[in-house]
Protein backbone atom coordinates (compact mmCIF):
# COMPACT_ATOMS: atom_id res chain seq x y z
CA UNK A 1 0.00 0.00 0.00
CA UNK A 2 1.10 3.54 -0.54
CA UNK A 3 2.38 5.44 2.41
CA UNK A 4 1.80 9.13 2.29
CA UNK A 5 4.34 11.74 3.25
CA UNK A 6 2.86 13.34 6.35
CA UNK A 7 4.34 16.70 5.37
CA UNK A 8 2.32 16.84 2.16
CA UNK A 9 -0.79 15.16 3.56
CA UNK A 10 -1.96 16.88 6.74
CA UNK A 11 -4.94 14.48 6.99
CA UNK A 12 -2.51 11.55 7.22
CA UNK A 13 -0.64 13.32 10.00
CA UNK A 14 -3.90 14.04 11.80
CA UNK A 15 -5.02 10.40 11.60
CA UNK A 16 -1.65 9.26 12.95
CA UNK A 17 -2.19 11.54 15.92
CA UNK A 18 -5.56 9.85 16.58
CA UNK A 19 -4.34 6.24 16.46
CA UNK A 20 -1.54 5.47 18.91
CA UNK A 21 -0.09 2.08 19.86
CA UNK A 22 -1.94 1.98 23.18
CA UNK A 23 -5.02 4.15 22.57
CA UNK A 24 -7.29 5.62 19.90
CA UNK A 25 -9.15 8.90 19.86
CA UNK A 26 -12.96 8.82 20.00
CA UNK A 27 -13.29 10.92 16.85
CA UNK A 28 -11.86 8.08 14.74
CA UNK A 29 -15.35 6.53 15.04
CA UNK A 30 -17.37 9.67 14.47
CA UNK A 31 -15.53 11.96 12.05
CA UNK A 32 -17.14 11.98 8.56
CA UNK A 33 -13.82 13.01 6.98
CA UNK A 34 -12.12 9.97 8.46
CA UNK A 35 -14.95 7.81 7.16
CA UNK A 36 -14.68 9.30 3.66
CA UNK A 37 -10.96 8.50 3.65
CA UNK A 38 -11.65 4.97 4.91
CA UNK A 39 -13.95 4.35 1.97
CA UNK A 40 -11.26 5.42 -0.50
CA UNK A 41 -8.27 3.90 1.19
CA UNK A 42 -9.73 0.74 2.69
CA UNK A 43 -13.07 -0.25 1.22
CA UNK A 44 -12.33 0.82 -2.37
CA UNK A 45 -8.69 -0.27 -2.35
CA UNK A 46 -8.01 -3.38 -0.37
CA UNK A 47 -9.49 -6.85 -0.89
CA UNK A 48 -13.05 -6.92 0.41
CA UNK A 49 -15.11 -10.08 0.81
CA UNK A 50 -18.05 -9.99 -1.61
CA UNK A 51 -19.75 -13.38 -1.54
CA UNK A 52 -19.34 -17.10 -1.88
CA UNK A 53 -19.22 -19.13 -5.09
CA UNK A 54 -22.01 -21.35 -3.74
CA UNK A 55 -24.37 -18.37 -3.89
CA UNK A 56 -24.15 -18.47 -7.71
CA UNK A 57 -24.07 -22.23 -8.28
CA UNK A 58 -25.31 -22.31 -11.88
CA UNK A 59 -24.09 -20.53 -15.02
CA UNK A 60 -25.82 -17.12 -15.33
CA UNK A 61 -26.80 -17.04 -11.64
CA UNK A 62 -26.38 -13.69 -9.95
CA UNK A 63 -26.79 -12.16 -6.49
CA UNK A 64 -26.73 -8.55 -5.39
CA UNK A 65 -23.91 -7.82 -2.97
CA UNK A 66 -22.14 -4.85 -1.46
CA UNK A 67 -18.67 -3.39 -1.01
CA UNK A 68 -19.36 -0.96 1.80
CA UNK A 69 -22.01 1.45 0.48
CA UNK A 70 -21.36 0.32 -3.11
CA UNK A 71 -24.03 -1.84 -4.73
CA UNK A 72 -22.52 -4.62 -6.81
CA UNK A 73 -23.79 -7.71 -8.60
CA UNK A 74 -21.85 -10.95 -8.34
CA UNK A 75 -22.44 -13.02 -11.47
CA UNK A 76 -21.32 -16.35 -12.85
CA UNK A 77 -21.05 -16.19 -16.61
CA UNK A 78 -21.78 -18.97 -19.10
CA UNK A 79 -18.23 -20.26 -18.83
CA UNK A 80 -18.38 -20.44 -15.02
CA UNK A 81 -16.18 -17.40 -14.33
CA UNK A 82 -17.30 -15.07 -11.51
CA UNK A 83 -17.57 -11.32 -12.05
CA UNK A 84 -18.31 -8.41 -9.73
CA UNK A 85 -20.17 -5.62 -11.55
CA UNK A 86 -21.10 -2.18 -10.32
CA UNK A 87 -24.90 -1.92 -10.31
CA UNK A 88 -24.99 1.24 -12.39
CA UNK A 89 -26.02 1.64 -16.01
CA UNK A 90 -23.24 3.10 -18.14
CA UNK A 91 -25.79 5.32 -19.92
CA UNK A 92 -27.54 7.44 -17.25
CA UNK A 93 -26.36 5.84 -14.03
CA UNK A 94 -29.57 3.99 -13.14
CA UNK A 95 -29.46 0.91 -10.94
CA UNK A 96 -29.62 -1.90 -13.48
CA UNK A 97 -30.38 -4.88 -11.30
CA UNK A 98 -33.24 -4.92 -8.83
CA UNK A 99 -33.83 -8.52 -7.71
CA UNK A 100 -31.72 -9.87 -4.85
CA UNK A 101 -30.91 -12.93 -6.93
CA UNK A 102 -31.80 -14.56 -10.19
CA UNK A 103 -30.61 -16.30 -13.30
CA UNK A 104 -29.91 -14.14 -16.33
CA UNK A 105 -27.22 -14.03 -18.97
CA UNK A 106 -27.82 -10.34 -19.44
CA UNK A 107 -29.25 -7.32 -17.67
CA UNK A 108 -31.49 -4.69 -19.25
CA UNK A 109 -31.69 -1.29 -17.63
CA UNK A 110 -35.34 -0.33 -16.99
CA UNK A 111 -34.70 3.33 -17.82
CA UNK A 112 -33.74 3.26 -21.54
CA UNK A 113 -33.22 -0.42 -22.24
CA UNK A 114 -29.44 -0.56 -22.50
CA UNK A 115 -28.53 -4.21 -22.25
CA UNK A 116 -25.39 -5.73 -20.77
CA UNK A 117 -23.97 -9.25 -20.63
CA UNK A 118 -23.34 -10.63 -17.13
CA UNK A 119 -19.66 -10.02 -17.81
CA UNK A 120 -20.41 -6.29 -18.01
CA UNK A 121 -20.10 -6.06 -21.82
CA UNK A 122 -22.54 -3.73 -23.53
CA UNK A 123 -24.74 -5.82 -25.84
CA UNK A 124 -26.84 -3.04 -27.28
CA UNK A 125 -29.42 -0.32 -26.83
CA UNK A 126 -32.79 0.59 -28.40
CA UNK A 127 -32.97 2.56 -31.67
CA UNK A 128 -29.25 2.45 -32.28
CA UNK A 129 -29.38 4.83 -35.25
CA UNK A 130 -29.32 7.54 -32.60
CA UNK A 131 -25.75 6.47 -31.97
CA UNK A 132 -24.94 5.87 -35.62
CA UNK A 133 -25.80 2.15 -35.64
CA UNK A 134 -24.79 -0.95 -33.76
CA UNK A 135 -21.10 -0.34 -34.40
CA UNK A 136 -21.24 2.42 -31.75
CA UNK A 137 -21.43 -0.36 -29.21
CA UNK A 138 -17.67 -0.84 -29.36
CA UNK A 139 -17.05 2.79 -28.42
CA UNK A 140 -19.51 2.98 -25.51
CA UNK A 141 -18.77 1.61 -22.04
CA UNK A 142 -20.32 -1.46 -20.47
CA UNK A 143 -21.06 -1.99 -16.79
CA UNK A 144 -18.02 -1.19 -14.69
CA UNK A 145 -16.40 -4.28 -13.26
CA UNK A 146 -14.27 -4.65 -10.15
CA UNK A 147 -10.72 -4.46 -11.52
CA UNK A 148 -9.69 -7.49 -9.51
CA UNK A 149 -11.80 -10.48 -8.46
CA UNK A 150 -10.22 -13.56 -6.92
CA UNK A 151 -11.48 -16.36 -4.77
CA UNK A 152 -10.04 -18.62 -2.13
CA UNK A 153 -11.83 -21.87 -1.28
CA UNK A 154 -14.98 -20.41 -2.85
CA UNK A 155 -14.78 -17.13 -0.88
CA UNK A 156 -14.94 -14.38 -3.50
CA UNK A 157 -13.12 -11.14 -2.82
CA UNK A 158 -12.89 -8.03 -4.97
CA UNK A 159 -10.57 -5.08 -5.00
CA UNK A 160 -11.70 -1.85 -6.63
CA UNK A 161 -8.05 -0.95 -7.16
CA UNK A 162 -6.24 -2.39 -10.20
CA UNK A 163 -3.00 -2.67 -8.22
CA UNK A 164 -1.96 -4.03 -4.89
CA UNK A 165 -1.10 -7.30 -3.20
CA UNK A 166 -2.67 -10.51 -4.54
CA UNK A 167 -5.57 -12.00 -2.60
CA UNK A 168 -3.28 -14.76 -1.34
CA UNK A 169 -0.80 -12.12 -0.07
CA UNK A 170 -3.66 -10.16 1.49
CA UNK A 171 -5.04 -13.20 3.32
CA UNK A 172 -1.65 -14.40 4.54
CA UNK A 173 -2.10 -16.65 7.57
CA UNK A 174 -5.86 -16.04 7.53
CA UNK A 175 -6.10 -18.35 4.49
CA UNK A 176 -5.23 -21.31 6.69
CA UNK A 177 -8.22 -20.43 8.91
CA UNK A 178 -10.50 -20.72 5.90
CA UNK A 179 -8.84 -24.10 5.21
CA UNK A 180 -9.61 -25.08 8.79
CA UNK A 181 -13.25 -24.12 8.24
CA UNK A 182 -13.56 -25.99 4.93
CA UNK A 183 -12.02 -29.23 6.20
CA UNK A 184 -15.01 -29.56 8.55
CA UNK A 185 -16.88 -30.65 5.43
CA UNK A 186 -16.37 -34.24 4.32
CA UNK A 187 -15.78 -32.90 0.82
CA UNK A 188 -13.84 -29.84 1.95
CA UNK A 189 -16.42 -27.29 0.85
CA UNK A 190 -18.51 -24.65 2.53
CA UNK A 191 -21.91 -23.71 1.06
CA UNK A 192 -23.72 -20.51 1.92
CA UNK A 193 -27.24 -21.61 1.07
CA UNK A 194 -29.21 -20.68 4.21
CA UNK A 195 -30.06 -17.09 3.23
CA UNK A 196 -29.26 -13.92 5.16
CA UNK A 197 -30.45 -12.02 8.19
CA UNK A 198 -29.51 -8.35 8.00
CA UNK A 199 -29.00 -6.43 11.22
CA UNK A 200 -28.43 -2.69 11.14
CA UNK A 201 -26.69 -0.86 13.96
CA UNK A 202 -26.21 2.82 14.63
CA UNK A 203 -22.47 2.48 15.05
CA UNK A 204 -19.22 2.86 13.18
CA UNK A 205 -18.03 -0.27 11.36
CA UNK A 206 -14.78 -0.45 13.34
CA UNK A 207 -16.75 -0.99 16.56
CA UNK A 208 -17.93 -4.26 15.02
CA UNK A 209 -14.54 -5.31 13.67
CA UNK A 210 -12.93 -4.76 17.08
CA UNK A 211 -15.68 -6.57 18.95
CA UNK A 212 -15.52 -9.69 16.76
CA UNK A 213 -12.27 -10.90 18.32
CA UNK A 214 -12.57 -9.09 21.65
CA UNK A 215 -12.36 -11.92 24.17
CA UNK A 216 -12.86 -9.55 27.08
CA UNK A 217 -16.55 -8.81 26.53
CA UNK A 218 -18.37 -12.19 26.31
CA UNK A 219 -18.52 -12.84 30.05
CA UNK A 220 -20.14 -9.44 30.57
CA UNK A 221 -22.24 -8.77 27.49
CA UNK A 222 -23.46 -12.36 27.18
CA UNK A 223 -23.68 -13.35 30.83
CA UNK A 224 -27.50 -13.35 30.63
CA UNK A 225 -27.56 -16.20 28.13
CA UNK A 226 -24.50 -18.07 29.43
CA UNK A 227 -25.94 -18.20 32.94
CA UNK A 228 -29.22 -19.79 31.92
CA UNK A 229 -28.12 -22.01 29.03
CA UNK A 230 -25.19 -23.58 30.90
CA UNK A 231 -23.02 -22.59 27.94
CA UNK A 232 -19.29 -23.14 28.37
CA UNK A 233 -18.45 -20.24 26.03
CA UNK A 234 -17.98 -17.80 28.89
CA UNK A 235 -15.25 -19.98 30.42
CA UNK A 236 -13.38 -20.03 27.10
CA UNK A 237 -12.94 -16.28 27.48
CA UNK A 238 -11.66 -16.10 31.03
CA UNK A 239 -8.23 -15.45 32.45
CA UNK A 240 -7.95 -19.18 33.19
CA UNK A 241 -8.54 -20.09 29.54
CA UNK A 242 -5.70 -21.53 27.46
CA UNK A 243 -7.22 -19.94 24.35
CA UNK A 244 -5.21 -17.18 22.71
CA UNK A 245 -5.90 -13.98 20.84
CA UNK A 246 -3.69 -13.85 17.76
CA UNK A 247 -2.71 -11.16 15.30
CA UNK A 248 -2.42 -12.90 11.94
CA UNK A 249 -0.94 -9.93 10.07
CA UNK A 250 -2.71 -7.72 7.55
CA UNK A 251 -5.19 -6.60 10.21
CA UNK A 252 -6.64 -10.13 10.41
CA UNK A 253 -7.14 -11.44 13.95
CA UNK A 254 -8.50 -14.48 15.72
CA UNK A 255 -9.56 -15.92 19.01
CA UNK A 256 -7.95 -19.32 18.80
CA UNK A 257 -10.06 -21.54 21.03
CA UNK A 258 -8.57 -24.81 19.74
CA UNK A 259 -6.29 -25.26 22.80
CA UNK A 260 -9.43 -25.38 24.94
CA UNK A 261 -11.23 -27.67 22.49
CA UNK A 262 -8.20 -29.99 22.50
CA UNK A 263 -8.16 -30.02 26.28
CA UNK A 264 -11.80 -31.07 26.13
CA UNK A 265 -10.82 -33.68 23.51
CA UNK A 266 -14.39 -34.42 22.36
CA UNK A 267 -15.22 -34.54 18.64
CA UNK A 268 -17.74 -31.76 17.91
CA UNK A 269 -17.40 -30.55 21.49
CA UNK A 270 -16.70 -27.11 20.01
CA UNK A 271 -20.21 -27.10 18.49
CA UNK A 272 -21.84 -28.40 21.67
CA UNK A 273 -23.26 -31.25 19.59
CA UNK A 274 -22.71 -34.83 20.81
CA UNK A 275 -21.51 -37.25 18.14
CA UNK A 276 -24.58 -39.42 18.65
CA UNK A 277 -26.85 -36.64 17.37
CA UNK A 278 -25.04 -36.36 14.03
CA UNK A 279 -24.00 -39.93 13.21
CA UNK A 280 -24.14 -39.45 9.42
CA UNK A 281 -21.83 -36.46 9.56
CA UNK A 282 -19.30 -38.15 11.84
CA UNK A 283 -19.30 -41.26 9.65
CA UNK A 284 -18.84 -39.19 6.50
CA UNK A 285 -15.92 -37.33 8.09
CA UNK A 286 -14.20 -40.56 9.15
CA UNK A 287 -14.74 -42.00 5.67
CA UNK A 288 -13.29 -38.91 4.04
CA UNK A 289 -10.27 -38.27 6.26
CA UNK A 290 -9.69 -41.51 8.22
CA UNK A 291 -10.71 -41.81 11.86
CA UNK A 292 -7.66 -40.17 13.46
CA UNK A 293 -7.52 -37.13 11.19
CA UNK A 294 -11.31 -36.75 11.20
CA UNK A 295 -11.42 -36.79 14.99
CA UNK A 296 -8.60 -34.25 15.15
CA UNK A 297 -10.52 -31.97 12.76
CA UNK A 298 -13.76 -32.42 14.72
CA UNK A 299 -11.99 -31.77 18.03
CA UNK A 300 -10.13 -28.64 16.87
CA UNK A 301 -13.34 -27.16 15.54
CA UNK A 302 -14.07 -24.12 13.46
CA UNK A 303 -12.12 -20.86 13.47
CA UNK A 304 -13.15 -17.57 15.09
CA UNK A 305 -11.40 -15.23 12.70
CA UNK A 306 -11.92 -11.63 11.59
CA UNK A 307 -10.58 -11.15 8.07
CA UNK A 308 -10.09 -7.42 7.68
CA UNK A 309 -12.10 -5.45 6.87
CA UNK A 310 -15.42 -7.28 6.52
CA UNK A 311 -15.45 -11.09 6.78
CA UNK A 312 -16.01 -12.60 10.19
CA UNK A 313 -16.22 -16.36 10.59
CA UNK A 314 -17.51 -17.16 14.07
CA UNK A 315 -17.40 -20.96 14.26
CA UNK A 316 -20.86 -21.76 12.88
CA UNK A 317 -21.84 -18.47 11.32
CA UNK A 318 -20.47 -16.03 8.80
CA UNK A 319 -20.87 -12.27 9.06
CA UNK A 320 -20.30 -9.74 6.32
CA UNK A 321 -19.82 -6.22 7.61
CA UNK A 322 -21.12 -3.35 5.51
CA UNK A 323 -20.58 0.28 6.46
CA UNK A 324 -23.33 2.61 5.17
CA UNK A 325 -22.28 5.83 6.89
CA UNK A 326 -19.87 6.87 9.61
CA UNK A 327 -22.42 5.77 12.22
CA UNK A 328 -24.43 3.15 10.32
CA UNK A 329 -23.38 -0.43 9.68
CA UNK A 330 -25.17 -3.55 8.53
CA UNK A 331 -24.15 -7.04 9.57
CA UNK A 332 -25.28 -9.66 7.08
CA UNK A 333 -25.22 -13.06 8.72
CA UNK A 334 -25.82 -16.63 7.63
CA UNK A 335 -25.35 -20.10 9.10
CA UNK A 336 -22.34 -21.85 7.64
CA UNK A 337 -23.32 -25.02 5.84
CA UNK A 338 -20.87 -27.80 5.09
CA UNK A 339 -21.18 -29.73 1.83
CA UNK A 340 -22.13 -33.34 2.49
CA UNK A 341 -23.36 -32.73 6.05
CA UNK A 342 -27.17 -32.32 5.99
CA UNK A 343 -27.73 -33.53 9.57
CA UNK A 344 -25.11 -31.15 10.97
CA UNK A 345 -26.32 -28.29 8.75
CA UNK A 346 -29.86 -28.34 10.17
CA UNK A 347 -28.49 -28.07 13.69
CA UNK A 348 -26.22 -25.21 12.63
CA UNK A 349 -29.16 -23.24 11.21
CA UNK A 350 -31.15 -23.71 14.42
CA UNK A 351 -28.19 -22.78 16.61
CA UNK A 352 -27.25 -19.78 14.48
CA UNK A 353 -30.81 -18.41 14.30
CA UNK A 354 -31.01 -18.49 18.09
CA UNK A 355 -27.79 -16.51 18.43
CA UNK A 356 -27.62 -13.87 15.71
CA UNK A 357 -29.58 -11.07 14.14
CA UNK A 358 -31.92 -8.42 15.52
CA UNK A 359 -33.54 -10.81 18.02
CA UNK A 360 -30.51 -13.06 18.55
CA UNK A 361 -29.75 -14.08 22.09
CA UNK A 362 -26.10 -13.09 21.57
CA UNK A 363 -25.95 -10.52 18.78
CA UNK A 364 -28.79 -8.27 19.96
CA UNK A 365 -26.68 -7.56 23.02
CA UNK A 366 -23.48 -7.04 21.01
CA UNK A 367 -25.44 -4.59 18.86
CA UNK A 368 -26.61 -2.77 21.97
CA UNK A 369 -22.96 -2.37 22.98
CA UNK A 370 -21.93 -1.03 19.54
CA UNK A 371 -24.71 1.54 19.73
CA UNK A 372 -24.00 2.55 23.33
CA UNK A 373 -20.33 2.75 22.44
CA UNK A 374 -21.05 4.99 19.46
CA UNK A 375 -23.09 7.34 21.65
CA UNK A 376 -20.43 7.17 24.35
CA UNK A 377 -17.48 8.17 22.17
CA UNK A 378 -19.39 11.25 21.05
CA UNK A 379 -19.01 12.58 24.61
CA UNK A 380 -16.12 14.97 25.03
CA UNK A 381 -14.10 13.46 27.87
CA UNK A 382 -11.78 11.65 28.33
CA UNK A 383 -11.40 11.65 24.49
CA UNK A 384 -9.38 8.43 24.25
CA UNK A 385 -10.22 4.72 24.25
CA UNK A 386 -7.75 2.53 26.07
CA UNK A 387 -6.06 -0.35 24.22
CA UNK A 388 -3.48 -1.47 26.79
CA UNK A 389 -5.04 -4.70 28.04
CA UNK A 390 -2.38 -7.43 27.87
CA UNK A 391 0.24 -5.18 26.30
CA UNK A 392 2.81 -6.26 28.92
CA UNK A 393 2.24 -9.97 28.36
CA UNK A 394 2.16 -10.17 24.58
CA UNK A 395 4.52 -12.68 23.02
CA UNK A 396 5.38 -14.11 19.63
CA UNK A 397 4.33 -17.68 18.79
CA UNK A 398 6.23 -20.26 16.74
CA UNK A 399 4.74 -18.89 13.51
CA UNK A 400 5.91 -15.36 14.29
CA UNK A 401 2.42 -14.07 15.16
CA UNK A 402 1.84 -11.81 18.15
CA UNK A 403 -0.41 -13.48 20.69
CA UNK A 404 -2.08 -12.54 23.94
CA UNK A 405 -4.33 -14.36 26.35
CA UNK A 406 -7.99 -15.01 25.54
CA UNK A 407 -9.10 -11.65 26.93
CA UNK A 408 -6.25 -9.41 25.73
CA UNK A 409 -6.61 -6.54 23.29
CA UNK A 410 -3.84 -7.87 21.05
CA UNK A 411 -6.33 -8.14 18.19
CA UNK A 412 -7.43 -4.51 18.40
CA UNK A 413 -3.88 -3.19 18.50
CA UNK A 414 -3.05 -5.28 15.42
CA UNK A 415 -6.14 -4.05 13.59
CA UNK A 416 -5.18 -0.44 14.27
CA UNK A 417 -1.56 -0.98 13.13
CA UNK A 418 -2.85 -2.23 9.79
CA UNK A 419 -5.44 0.54 9.65
CA UNK A 420 -2.68 3.14 9.89
CA UNK A 421 -0.75 1.47 7.07
CA UNK A 422 -3.76 1.77 4.80
CA UNK A 423 -4.91 5.20 5.94
CA UNK A 424 -1.63 7.16 6.08
Amino acid at each position, binding site marked *: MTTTDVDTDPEAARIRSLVLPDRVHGSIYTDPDVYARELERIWYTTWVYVGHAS*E*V*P*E*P*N*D*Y*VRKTIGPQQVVMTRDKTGAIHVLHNRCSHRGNLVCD*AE*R*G*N*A*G*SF*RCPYHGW*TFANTGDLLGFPF*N*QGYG*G*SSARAQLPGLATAPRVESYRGFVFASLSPDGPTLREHLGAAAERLDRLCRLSPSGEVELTAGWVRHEVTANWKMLVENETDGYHPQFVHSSIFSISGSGIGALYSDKSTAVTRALGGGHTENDLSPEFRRLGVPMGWAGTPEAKIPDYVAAMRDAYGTDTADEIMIDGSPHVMIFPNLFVAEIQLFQIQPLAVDRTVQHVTAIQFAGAPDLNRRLVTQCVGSVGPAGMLLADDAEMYERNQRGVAQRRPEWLDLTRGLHRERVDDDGHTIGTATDETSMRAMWRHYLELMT
Partner: protein
Amino acid sequence: MDVVASEFATVSVSVDDHGNGTRLRLEDLRTGTVRFLDALELESIVWAPESWMRALLDPSQHRWRDADRGPAQESMPEPPEEPPA
Protein backbone atom coordinates in the same frame (compact mmCIF):
# COMPACT_ATOMS: atom_id res chain seq x y z
CA MET B 1 -40.63 -32.02 -19.23
CA ASP B 2 -42.22 -31.94 -22.66
CA VAL B 3 -40.81 -33.11 -25.95
CA VAL B 4 -41.17 -31.14 -29.14
CA ALA B 5 -40.43 -33.54 -31.96
CA SER B 6 -40.67 -33.68 -35.71
CA GLU B 7 -39.09 -35.87 -38.34
CA PHE B 8 -36.13 -33.41 -38.31
CA ALA B 9 -35.34 -32.81 -34.64
CA THR B 10 -36.29 -33.93 -31.14
CA VAL B 11 -35.93 -31.44 -28.31
CA SER B 12 -37.04 -31.70 -24.69
CA VAL B 13 -38.34 -28.53 -23.07
CA SER B 14 -38.59 -27.88 -19.34
CA VAL B 15 -38.55 -25.01 -16.88
CA ASP B 16 -35.47 -25.42 -14.69
CA ASP B 17 -35.23 -23.91 -11.21
CA HIS B 18 -31.91 -25.28 -9.98
CA GLY B 19 -30.27 -21.87 -10.30
CA ASN B 20 -31.08 -18.61 -8.53
CA GLY B 21 -34.00 -18.01 -10.90
CA THR B 22 -36.08 -19.93 -13.43
CA ARG B 23 -34.88 -20.56 -16.97
CA LEU B 24 -35.88 -22.69 -19.90
CA ARG B 25 -33.90 -25.87 -20.40
CA LEU B 26 -33.69 -27.19 -23.94
CA GLU B 27 -32.06 -30.50 -24.74
CA ASP B 28 -31.37 -31.81 -28.20
CA LEU B 29 -32.30 -35.39 -27.40
CA ARG B 30 -30.42 -36.74 -30.41
CA THR B 31 -27.05 -35.52 -29.10
CA GLY B 32 -27.69 -34.65 -25.44
CA THR B 33 -26.57 -31.07 -26.04
CA VAL B 34 -28.25 -28.68 -23.59
CA ARG B 35 -28.92 -24.98 -23.79
CA PHE B 36 -30.51 -22.80 -21.12
CA LEU B 37 -32.42 -19.66 -22.07
CA ASP B 38 -33.30 -16.97 -19.56
CA ALA B 39 -36.38 -14.76 -19.70
CA LEU B 40 -34.72 -11.88 -21.51
CA GLU B 41 -33.25 -14.23 -24.12
CA LEU B 42 -36.68 -15.79 -24.65
CA GLU B 43 -38.32 -12.41 -25.03
CA SER B 44 -35.66 -11.45 -27.51
CA ILE B 45 -36.32 -14.61 -29.54
CA VAL B 46 -40.03 -13.79 -29.55
CA TRP B 47 -39.22 -10.43 -31.07
CA ALA B 48 -36.39 -11.53 -33.36
CA PRO B 49 -36.97 -10.81 -37.05
CA GLU B 50 -37.56 -13.67 -39.42
CA SER B 51 -34.26 -12.98 -41.18
CA TRP B 52 -32.43 -13.73 -37.91
CA MET B 53 -34.25 -17.03 -37.52
CA ARG B 54 -33.57 -17.94 -41.15
CA ALA B 55 -29.88 -17.31 -40.60
CA LEU B 56 -29.97 -19.45 -37.46
CA LEU B 57 -31.36 -22.35 -39.47
CA ASP B 58 -28.46 -22.37 -41.91
CA PRO B 59 -26.60 -25.57 -40.85
CA SER B 60 -23.21 -24.17 -41.76
CA GLN B 61 -23.66 -21.41 -39.16
CA HIS B 62 -23.10 -23.70 -36.19
CA ARG B 63 -23.20 -27.48 -36.03
CA TRP B 64 -21.99 -28.28 -39.51
CA ARG B 65 -19.68 -25.34 -40.01
CA ASP B 66 -16.37 -25.59 -41.82
CA ALA B 67 -13.49 -26.08 -39.42
CA ASP B 68 -11.51 -23.10 -40.75
CA ARG B 69 -14.27 -20.55 -40.00
CA GLY B 70 -13.67 -20.08 -36.28
CA PRO B 71 -16.18 -20.25 -33.41
CA ALA B 72 -19.82 -20.22 -34.36
CA GLN B 73 -20.94 -17.17 -32.39
CA GLU B 74 -18.43 -14.95 -34.17
CA SER B 75 -19.87 -15.58 -37.60
CA MET B 76 -23.56 -15.27 -36.81
CA PRO B 77 -24.86 -12.38 -38.88
CA GLU B 78 -25.65 -9.15 -37.08
CA PRO B 79 -29.38 -8.78 -36.50
CA PRO B 80 -30.90 -6.19 -38.80
CA GLU B 81 -30.71 -2.60 -37.63
CA GLU B 82 -34.44 -1.97 -37.77
CA PRO B 83 -36.90 -3.54 -35.34
CA PRO B 84 -39.35 -6.02 -36.87
CA ALA B 85 -42.50 -4.59 -38.36
